[in-house]
């Protein structure tokens, strides 16, 4: 299935100014909360004060007496989810695992879960009315610790969750929805062959994606049953699908427009406010705006899972891995979402090893339902695997990159799950990292260096694109994927490459669900590959049409007309080499530019436009490596990241600056997760740090410039060699940082985050000889 991959480009690989840049820096860009419409009222959510309780009754009477309160709602206004499954792009989702997150039904399973909502003529009035809603609860014992939740005698969150993946099928419910194990080879034999076996257990806390823009939407309904939604999301079509499912309203009544988005990272691949605002709008007959506070975002949206991973790796004394065993316990919050799958399947995918056993269990606790954070489920176990790999290299007195080169997978190697690798760039990534000046830069006393690599599978899925040509030959591209990481610029570059016209003459737009064909979410590192693939297809269709129009004008057969340098050229001329219009005119060749053909479109068949859609089956995996230098203040436990370098195989980088941005963004997020970020729940099961003062994400002054090296091993399945780039950057930072910090401090902390108090205690214990 490999195809001819283009390697020479005119526009792809350049760095044009981003088309959304001026709007964003001048404040013109409109985000979720920026839309205001006439007659609009404001919704407010009533949230649970308990981590686990039965909802005995909800009384809106006092709230409704407040002048200006126009609508109320609860789960009674939504259909029972039953066992219905909803297509969610890569995976099906059970409606009962996310409808109660929108609005709790009968029970609340975490503090801050939505219980009811009101709408009123001002935000202040809506908040006041929400305070007057009387909810009677029967408080139940809550369970926050995943080990405790996994025990057979633990209080149950759900009485209908039976562990999948266990034989015989359990007859009693539990808090473990999923168990999975994969194995290949003979793990006992693999460890028996090892000269050195290292076994460690690492804990990674629940953390939030930390997107700057809170969730927000405006919903307008009308007397014809039409439902317009404006919202901040990673997928307008996803919002349409999920909101229709949660509300029970026909999908054909929805039009969803994605606003500009201030970050998502996987956290905006679902709905929270939209179905609520739809019901409130239908009940009030008014447009309804809803905006989450930062507190709401932390308490009630989906963070990344916490996980504990035990890893055991065996090696020969010459550094060959003989066995890898992992055992993961993953805290998924109150409803199952299966991030464990990727964690179990791919945690050691960077390494060639005949004997692998990987086991994992998801556990439900009274915390928010988790969602993706870039590469869901993989950073947590990769911390364990990569830190142990670094320890092994150190104990064998081997360079950690040489150790990885010795064991790295390459084309033709087979993953533990049986899938063979096509062309991949792991070894090139490792070689580039080893050659980078950072890797051999001298460290001072009290400083440490860590390296780590990671793998991510990436996705394809469904996308559509439309290309319209204006009368002057300018081009407009319409796609349905919210632009999170620079996709508009990438779409324009790929269209420019096919059409042969300057990228500046192309206007890429993200449009609503009525204005373009279906697109899966902007997620899974898929947009440049899949939606870009649709753009390439549409542009190729347009070129064929342009050749046909030119052939008609010249009374030639289409095969006698080529398209080169942004114009149609009659092949009967003196040749196509070194073609430009002046040369062609000098030689007497017939040429027609895009503008010429656009001006005569009416006379040659009508407006010039092309549409393409596809289900991209050509995704290819990515590998990334990070190098981190850290220094630890032994008196305070504060960590300074001194130098940081990311190396990543991007396939062909369509717009390199955006690829670098993804690498840098993932690195910064991973540094934060490693050093400070964690959800801290108190004894009542309430989140104690739901704001950026107490939930410490890195800011610019905390960080050095993140250096980047893009490795370009083309994806053999994509016409331009594109691979996904957005997810894998979250996986290597934590183990790189943890290794660097432990080396700098002389500690071996395995419990993240390595926050100053924890680090200081470990340093003091190490100095006292009690570690």
């Amino acid at each position, binding site marked *: 299935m490999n195809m001819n991959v283009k390697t020479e480009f005119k526009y792809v690989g350049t760095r044009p100014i981003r088309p959304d840049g001026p709007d964003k820096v001048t404040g013109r860009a409109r985000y979720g909360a920026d839309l205001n419409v006439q007659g609009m009222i404001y919704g407010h959510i009533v949230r649970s004060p308990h981590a686990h309780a039965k909802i005995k009754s909800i009384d809106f009477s006092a709230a409704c007496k407040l002048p200006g309160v126009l609508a109320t709602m609860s789960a009674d206004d939504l259909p029972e989810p039953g066992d219905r499954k909803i297509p969610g792009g890569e995976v*099906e989702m059970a409606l009962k695992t996310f409808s109660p997150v929108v609005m709790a039904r009968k029970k609340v399973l975490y503090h801050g879960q939505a219980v009811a909502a009101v709408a009123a003529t001002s935000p202040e009035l809506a908040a006041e009315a929400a305070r007057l809603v009387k909810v009677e609860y029967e408080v139940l014992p809550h369970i926050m610790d995943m080990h405790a939740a996994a025990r057979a005698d633990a209080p149950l969150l759900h009485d209908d969750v039976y562990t*999948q*993946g266990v034989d015989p099928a359990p007859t009693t419910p539990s808090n473990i929805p999923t168990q999975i194990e994969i194995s290949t080879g003979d793990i006992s034999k693999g460890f028996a062959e090892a000269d050195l076996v290292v076994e460690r257990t690492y804990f990674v806390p629940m953390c939030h994606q930390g997107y700057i823009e809170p969730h927000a939407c405006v919903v307008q309904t009308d007397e014809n049953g039409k439902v317009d939604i404006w919202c901040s999301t990673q997928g307008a079509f996803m919002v349409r699908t999920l909101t229709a499912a949660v509300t029970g309203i026909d999908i054909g009544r929805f039009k969803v427009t994605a606003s500009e988005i201030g970050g998502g990272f996987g956290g905006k691949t679902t709905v929270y406010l939209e179905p609520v605002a739809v019901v409130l709008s239908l009940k009030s007959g008014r447009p309804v705006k809803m905006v989450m506070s930062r507190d709401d975002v932390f308490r009630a949206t989906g963070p990344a899972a916490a996980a504990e991973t035990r890893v055991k790796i065996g090696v020969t004394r010459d550094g060959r891995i003989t066995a890898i065993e992992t055992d993961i316990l993953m805290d998924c919050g109150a409803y199952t979402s299966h*991030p464990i799958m990727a964690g179990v399947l791919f945690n050691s995918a960077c390494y060639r090893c005949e004997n692998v056993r990987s086991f994992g269990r998801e556990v439900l606790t009274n915390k928010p339902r988790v969602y993706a*954070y870039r590469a869901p489920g993989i950073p947590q176990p990769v911390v364990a695997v990569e830190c142990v790999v670094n320890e092994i290299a150190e104990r064998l007195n081997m360079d950690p990159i040489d150790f990885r080169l010795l064991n790295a997978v390459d084309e033709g190697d087979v993953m533990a799950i*049986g899938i063979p690798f096509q062309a991949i760039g792991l070894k090139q990534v490792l070689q580039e990292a080893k050659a980078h000046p950072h890797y051999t830069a001298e460290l001072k006393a009290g400083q440490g260096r860590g390296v780590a690599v990671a793998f991510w599978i990436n996705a394809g899925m469904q996308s559509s694109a439309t290309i319209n040509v204006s009368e002057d030959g300018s081009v407009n591209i319409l796609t349905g994927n919210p632009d999170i990481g620079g996709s508009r610029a990438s779409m324009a570059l790929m269209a420019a490459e096919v059409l042969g016209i300057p990228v500046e003459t192309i206007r890429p737009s993200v449009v609503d669900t009525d204005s373009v064909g279906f697109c899966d979410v902007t997620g899974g590192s898929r947009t440049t590959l899949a939606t870009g693939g649709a753009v390439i297809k549409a542009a190729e269709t347009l070129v064929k049409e342009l050749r046909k129009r030119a052939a008609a004008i010249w009374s030639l057969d289409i095969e006698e007309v080529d398209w080169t340098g942004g114009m149609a050229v009659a092949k009967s001329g003196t040749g196509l080499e070194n073609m430009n219009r002046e040369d062609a005119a000098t030689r007497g060749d017939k040429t027609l530019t895009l503008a010429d053909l656009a001006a005569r479109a009416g006379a040659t068949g009508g407006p010039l436009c092309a549409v393409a859609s596809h289900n991209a*089956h050509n995704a290819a995996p990515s590998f990334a490596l990070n190098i981190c230098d850290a220094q630890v203040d032994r008196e305070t436990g504060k960590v300074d990241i001194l130098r940081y370098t990311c190396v990543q195989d991007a396939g062909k980088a369509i717009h390199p600056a955006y690829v670098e941005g993804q690498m840098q963004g993932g690195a910064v997020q991973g540094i934060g997760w490693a050093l400070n970020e964690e959800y801290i729940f108190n004894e009542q099961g309430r989140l104690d740090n739901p704001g950026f003062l107490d939930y410490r994400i890195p800011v610019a002054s905390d960080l050095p410039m993140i250096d980047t090296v893009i490795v370009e091993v083309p994806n053999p399945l994509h016409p331009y060699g594109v691979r996904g780039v957005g997810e894998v950057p979250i996986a290597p930072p934590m183990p790189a940082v943890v290794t660097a910090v432990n080396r700098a401090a002389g500690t071996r902390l395995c419990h993240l985050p390595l926050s100053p108090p924890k680090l200081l205690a470990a340093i003091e214990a190490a100095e006292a000889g009690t570690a």
Partner: protein
Amino acid sequence: MARVILSADMQRYTDGIREITVSAGKYRDLVTELLQRFPGMNEAIVAKHALAIDGIIIQTPLLETFGEDSELVFVARIAGG
């Protein structure tokens, strides 16, 4: 005969058999063959999986075809972010 590697979940219905060969050349025929050989398995279990054909993971393989020498791997569907 195409070589098929079954996922851990599917192996629960095959008495632990991980690898088989099939005469099918189309996904639909592959499913039929699997259900005939392993009566405990059902279509819903198969449909939960993506299928990797010669190393290329396809989430929705309904119309896919493959060759006699193809390597097919059923793999749990993975959500991204």
